[in-house]
Every structure is written in C-alpha cells, then in structure tokens.
C-alpha cells in the first residue's frame, strides 16, 4: 500500500529532521542559562495547542514559493509546499513539542553534579554535553523519537494544507482514509488503513514505553 509506505517514510524523515533541533531546544530549556527560555518554551509548545489547520496555514505562508523560506528552497530545487517534503515538515512541526518535552524530561533525570564534575575535570560545556548529558539521556531521546514518530504518522490537518493530497506523493494514511471516505465503496481499504494506523501507533507507543522503562531501569542501575 502506497500510503502506508509513504506514511512510514514521512514519519521517519520527520523524526530524523526534528531530532537535532529538538535535542538543542530541550538542552537549552533544561540546562541553558541564557535569556528567553520562557518565550522559547511558549513558541515550541504552540503546535501542541494550536489547531493543526492553523499550523498548516502558517507553514504554507512560510514555505509557499512566495514565502520567506519557500522562495529560497524553491530556487535551490527543494520545493516543500505540495511536495512530500511538505508532509515531512508538517509532521515534524506538529510532533516537535512532544519530542522536546520527552528529551527535556530525560535530561532532567541526568544528575547535574556529573556535568559539574566533567567541567571541573577540564571538559568544556560543549564537550560535557556530548560526553555526559547526551549519552545519559539517549534512551529518553529514543522514546521521545518513538512518540514523535507516532504523532507524525497521524498528522492530517497541517499536512493537507501544506502538502495537499497528491496520491503517491503526499497522500499519507490519514489523507488516504479521508479520500476513501469521499469515494464510494472504499470500506475495505479504509478498514485496512485504519488497522495499519492502529498497528503502527501501538507499535510506536509500545516502543516508547519499552525504551522509557529501559531508561528508568538503567538510571536506577547507574545510581
């Protein structure tokens, strides 16, 4: 099924795309000392509370060929609006707040005195992050990725606005179900898609729970 394959590709790509910024933002929110953390947190959490259609509209404004980023990306031969990349961006943005929350939670669990000891032993903040904070929050980051992936898989509102519904290109599972609902006789296909959706999401959540449990057990063991 094309839409299942596309959903998996979009979900995975969105997760990978948002991983570095999610880690950076989570670190700044959890450990950073600079200004604007409250503001940043509000902005990052917006996609969680805004209607997905509104998020999609704002993304369309940004990524359309006449938008601030879309124009530049278009000239570079990387169109986003009404392209599968649009579905990736929409899924990444909508899943971003949960991803950041999960990583920040994992980083909160890292004993801050370990980072202090690393600094005293001569490592810079940057090297301390790479050698202590990141490895110790890694399982939490992975469970955050699983949640973000599952969220990306179900993304509909922002995707249909930014990427449209182009079969084989941007038609992910939710969009495909929507299309089948409009046509007659698509009950069997809808059933298959719904089952695939449920299975993938359960898989994602189970993976997240498993990783979270592993993380907690590891942290307890490490204490």
């Amino acid at each position, binding site marked *: 099924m094309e839409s299942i394959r596309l959903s998996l590709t979009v979900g995975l790509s969105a997760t990978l795309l948002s991983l570095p910024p999610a880690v950076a933002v989570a670190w700044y929110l959890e450990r950073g000392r600079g200004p604007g953390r409250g503001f940043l947190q509000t902005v990052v959490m917006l996609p969680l509370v805004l209607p997905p259609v509104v998020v999609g509209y704002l993304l369309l404004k940004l990524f359309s060929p006449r938008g601030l980023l879309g124009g530049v990306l278009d000239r570079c031969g990387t169109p986003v609006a009404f392209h599968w990349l649009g579905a990736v961006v929409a899924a990444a943005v909508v899943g971003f707040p949960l991803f950041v929350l999960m990583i920040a939670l994992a980083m909160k669990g890292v*004993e801050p*005195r*370990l980072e*202090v*000891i*690393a*600094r*005293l*032993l*001569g*490592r*810079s903040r940057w*090297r301390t992050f790479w*050698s*202590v904070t990141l*490895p*110790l929050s890694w399982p939490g980051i992975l469970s955050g990725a699983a949640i973000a992936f599952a969220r990306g898989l179900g993304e509909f509102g922002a995707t249909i606005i930014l990427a449209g519904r182009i079969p084989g290109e941007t038609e992910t599972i939710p969009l495909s179900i929507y299309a089948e609902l409009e046509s007659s006789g698509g009950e069997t296909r809808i059933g298959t898609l719904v089952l695939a959706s449920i299975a993938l999401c359960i898989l994602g959540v189970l993976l997240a729970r498993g990783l979270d449990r592993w993380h907690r057990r590891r942290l307890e*063991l*490490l*204490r």
Partner: protein
Amino acid sequence: MRFDIAARVRRSTGFTLEARFSCQADSVGVTGPSGSGKSTLLDAVAGIEPGARVVLGGTDLGSVPIERRGVAYVSQDPLLFPHLSVRANLLFSPRASDLGEVPDALGIRPLLDRMPRNLSGGERRRVALGRAILSRPKVLLLDEPFGGLDETRRRDAMSLLDRVRSSYRLPMVLVSHVAEELAALTDWTVRLEEGRVISSGPTVAALREAETRIDNYFEGEVVSAGRVRVEGTELACLLPERLSGRVRLACYAHDILLAREAPRAISARNVFSVRVANVIRIAEAVLVEIEKPALRALLTTEAATSLGLSPGTEAFAVVKATSVVYLGPA
C-alpha cells in the same frame, strides 16, 4: 601553597556564607557543624558557586572558567560517570594522557574494565580519587571523603590519601568534622559556624579549641554471649543474641578510664592491665595509647600528670560494658 579565599554566597533558603581566610599551607582542613557552609565553601572555591574570590598560589581564579581552574573535586558521593568504564572514568579529563602508576597506587588496576555499578563504595571512592589525580589539578578539594566508610576502610582511605598527598605533592582542601582526619591530613584548619569563619589557624591549635573526640574502633572474636576476646583480653559488652565469629566494635576514647591500681568493687565490667605505649598531648587533653588491646584513652592533662603516665607505664584500663558498641560482623 598560598590560599587566599573570600567567598560570599547567598542562598534562596536564607543561608549566607561569608568566609574569608588566608594561609600558607600544604593542606587546609575545613570543619564545623552540619549546615555551617563547609560544602558551600568548597563549591565556591571550585567555581560551582559564583561569588568567591579565590587566589591559589598567587593565581586569581575569579575570571578563570571552571574547566580551566585546575581544581579537582572529590565529594562523599564519588559521582563516577555511570555510562563509562573505570578506565574511561580515569581518563575522562583531557589533561589525563595515560594512567601511569595511579591505578597501582590506588589498588584499582584489576577494576579498569569494570563499570561503576559493579564497584563497591570504597572502590568507587578510589576511582574518583584516581580520576581527580589524573586530571593533574593544582589543588584537590575533598568533601567528607571518608564519610560512610567503616573504620577499617576509613583508615585505609586515610593512609592512601596521605600517600597521595606526599607522593604527588598535591595541595588539598579537606572538609571533615573528624578531628583525627584533620590532624592526620592537614596543617591548617578553618572552622566555620553559620556560614562564618570563627577560627583559622594551624590544625594543632584549631583542634585545641575543638571538642576532641577520638574514637576507638577494633575487632574481636565472640567467645560467649556478651563477651569478646580482643587481642587476648576478654571484654564484656552488649552484643546481639546468638552472635559468633569476628565482630567490629567501637568505644569512645573518653569512655576509657585509667588507674595505677586495680579498682575493686566497681560497676564497670571490664578492668584489665595494660601498658602505656604513647602519650600524646592535645592542648588541655592527653591521648594515651595503650597496648593489648591497642586502645586510646582521652584524659585531662591533670589526670595524666597525677597518674605519672609515660610510655612503658603499667596501668589498669576500666571500661563499662555499655561503652563498647557493637558495629557489625567483621
């Protein structure tokens, strides 16, 4: 090394540390009651707490970033990196080029490939100390490094630290509330109370002002209910029921009486003849080391003088059974 330290730290809890002292010493002890600001002072020296002016050996550390201060910190909790092996922990500092003889000196070479979770408390502390030494610090900060160790391990750790101090010529700041540790390892002691320095001077003088409570820790073999043999002398003490084998015991030095003649009709259950091995003067008190069993009794100078105690003197030690405390199996 010359230590010039002025720390001013305000905590949201209302606690304020305003400590200032200068000294020329190899090793500085910081003592005082719980909550007096000992650890906060160490944090300030290390640069973890801002607000301290720290000049060590003529170098002002105020503007030096924490990673370039050359200050190694070993706390009561060894804080090993749990995801790294002992070897990786030891070589964590960019200044640690190779292990050299440190693993042998600390007796941790067999542990190099183990993970911290598979180490005992004592082993973790030794690894933390090794990691600190290998970071080639200018000064070593130690926060209650012997806390929570049983007596045998505490003594081992103390002698190890003494060897480290002399072989690596490493200036140290040691936080401890145990007079014996300060006496053995430091030559200058700063006493804090409620965040302020109330005395700063040579350790011997500082201990003179402090309550000197030096304890005895020893082992013995249970011979019957409530009786243990310690170096050939049988002692009555309060033991849990059905105990056998070797046990660890403790007794305060000030709970041991000395007499030149055997006291009679006395409630104390332990009266045994001893020979004085050594007499150490600690200001107004005298610490008398006795042999067989090797114990220490804390007497006033007046009492020691009137008894005419000196090395070789034969005497009787008097110890109440309730003064000998059972610590656990050996």
